[in-house]
């Protein structure tokens, strides 16, 4: 494991000191389910939420509890094997345990911090309101997510491994890319390579693929189909493998068989713009400035129509993290951040993961 016990302990200390104490929060509830931001729970406990909800309960002093939906006793066994918590409980009604924790401490009118609860099951919030008529609630989701933006050395090591896995996966795919292959078969090869290279393997979502093939000039990438590739087809793929919970993204576009001169030139041209965007990212710039720069590069190349909204976002334990690289986000880009940058025009789709260093950005992908 790249992330050590002491790093997890350090995170709990930081959350208590930097987020809870200044706000006088007595108990912090961090919610996640497999749909909404599992990264917050994993960040604190290493628990990879799947097929259920999970909630971290962190009092200002004392033991960290982890509750989760319990379909089967096997989940409890697994939780104890992989998660770092002092207390585990499989329960449909986590609010009861929250009440126990507050009552044990004899706190009246508690201040309860909330993370990720905007999308929690409504019955859980109803229970909290019922059991805590005397409490105040304070949402600090953004604050915890901002805390997670800058990655530690160990986290960066995980991201680098994920990028290596993505590269190996892409190479395996390229080796099988030919007329007559199907999207399905190509992804099977790429997935196999990713798993052999060490990607997390709990669910299919841990190695995400999005593809588009055929005449993709006006299409977006989507789930894999059983389409068979023909001569001259464009094949675009985005690979996002997870390593110890950390994800990167690598996206490339190819022509099946021989590409025409126009196709090669177009691919080189857009690749060059994409590379310029990536290399222009520097610490000290704001996310909106990066987006504006990218917009400018596309406009200069006569491709203004292809700039839509965001050109990327943060990445790490969640597939989409702060900041968003769009014209509205004023977040300062700082060393330690990991960003995904995407460029798409005329059926050429490219994506890379960038690590922000002390003075410049490093493109993690080697392909």
């Amino acid at each position, binding site marked *: 494991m790249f992330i050590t016990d002491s790093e997890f302990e350090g995170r709990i200390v930081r959350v208590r000191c930097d987020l809870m104490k200044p706000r006088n929060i007595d108990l912090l509830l961090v919610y996640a389910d*497999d*749909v*909404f931001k599992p990264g917050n729970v994993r960040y604190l406990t290493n628990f990879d939420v*799947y*097929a*259920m909800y999970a909630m971290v309960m962190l009092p200002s002093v004392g033991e960290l509890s982890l509750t989760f*939906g*319990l*379909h*089967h*006793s*096997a989940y409890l*066994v*697994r939780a104890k094997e992989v998660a770092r918590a002092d207390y585990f409980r499989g329960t*449909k009604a986590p609010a009861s345990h929250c009440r126990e924790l507050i009552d044990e401490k004899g706190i009246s009118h508690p201040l309860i911090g909330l993370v990720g*609860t*905007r*999308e*929690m*099951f*409504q*019955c*859980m*919030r109803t229970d909290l309101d019922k059991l805590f008529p005397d409490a105040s609630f304070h949402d600090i989701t953004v604050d915890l997510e901002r805390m997670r933006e800058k990655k530690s050395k160990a986290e960066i090591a995980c991201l680098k491994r994920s990028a290596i896995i993505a590269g190996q996966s892409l190479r395996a795919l390229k080796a099988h890319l030919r007329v007559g292959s199907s999207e*399905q*078969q190509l*992804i*099977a090869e790429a*997935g*196999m390579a990713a*798993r*052999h290279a060490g990607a997390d*393997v*709990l*669910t*299919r*979502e841990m190695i995400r693929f*999005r593809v588009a093939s055929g005449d993709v000039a*006006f*299409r*977006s*990438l*989507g*789930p*894999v189909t*059983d389409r068979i590739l023909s001569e001259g087809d464009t094949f675009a793929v985005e690979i996002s493998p997870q390593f110890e919970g950390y994800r990167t993204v690598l996206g490339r576009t190819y022509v099946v068989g021989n590409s025409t001169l126009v196709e090669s030139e177009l691919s080189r041209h857009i690749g060059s713009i994409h590379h310029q965007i990536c290399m222009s990212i520097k610490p000290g710039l704001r996310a909106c400035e990066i987006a504006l720069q990218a917009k400018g590069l596309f406009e200069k190349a006569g491709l203004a129509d292809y700039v839509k*909204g965001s050109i990327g976002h943060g990445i790490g334990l969640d*597939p989409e993290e702060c900041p968003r690289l769009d014209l509205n986000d004023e977040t300062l880009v700082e060393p330690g951040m990991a960003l995904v940058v995407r460029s798409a025009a005329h059926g050429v789709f490219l994506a890379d993961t960038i690590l922000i260093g002390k003075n410049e950005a490093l493109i993690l992908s080697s392909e």
Partner: protein
Amino acid sequence: MIETLFPFGEYESRVQKVRKAMSEEGLDVLLILGSRQWYRDHYIHYIANYDVPDHPSMIVLPLDDEPALLICDEWDLERARERTWIADVRSASDLAKDMVETLRSRRLGTGKVGIAGGEGLGYTALEAFPLNLYTAIKEAFPTVEMDSASQMMDKIRAIRSPREIEVLRKASKISDIGAEAFYATVREGISERELWTEIWYAMESAGAQDLHISISRGPGSFWPHPPSSARLSKGDVVCLEFSPRFHGYFTQANRMCIIGEMTREWRELCQMAIEVRDAAIESILPGVMACEVVERIVKLVAKSQLGTMDIGGAHRIGHGSGICLDEWPALTSVSRTVRQEGMSLAVHPIIYVPYLHSLFILGEYVLVTKDGHEVLTRRQAEIPNV
């Protein structure tokens, strides 16, 4: 050009059944939520033929008006329009806000709203409805009543159409391919992860568009779990569950093998597992209640004096499986649901052998027919040793 998995008529028929049930339940509109994670897009798939790529999507299905499909992945709008028969497909940058606007535009601010999708693990769809969506409805339409429509949807989609059965047959073949890969690969010394990777590759190459595989390895790690780097060793009882998803439909098969010499003791245990599985399958008949079947199987296992089905909770010999990996009806000792023609079930009695601290699980995918049943996966005749 729109390309749905089934002809439009099939989706029309589904919507008609849903609307009939809505009318009986007094629902003015049905909100069907779905997301990609853990296959929670099943109802969106079933009604709209849309496979949610990432962020949640929602179908707004009024009783007496045209439905709308709201998708949060704006970049997927065009593909969504190619896949679904629903004419009104919209991008929803803020699902709560866009859901309310859609309800308003269809004049659905009063009456009763049904919620489906997102249910599971003991939560109804209404309980599991995300707080932001629930609050948005409550604030915009204070007099509206919300209710879970999971049971209503369960009963409709549990009976497979002939076309769905054809898809399930193909999905079952993929399970068989997974089983072949298991037996071709399993050996002493291989790690769970290596074994799992080979099986995954075989099924994905055969067309599985999603997969779930779990491993149980007694006595070291006998609860079903994701693969680890632990290596199979002599004396291990290895059980695998393969659940490929093909065009939105799951099937399931359970296979097992013994690592080491097949002694007399192992032969007796394996024979028991086969007999119990066969008895469970033979009991799957239309008109029969689940709990009656389970009771017979529990007695059969107890009679063998080799194992038990007491592993906590109700005794269970399987469950529905189709558009969801694990769906209604459950085959448990407390389930009074009657088997009906057209249901498709994963039948896998779970036997625990205490002195070996191991599970014995063999299972097949079974279709309930008019007069009996049909096993769609290739039934395993014996449990091998390697």
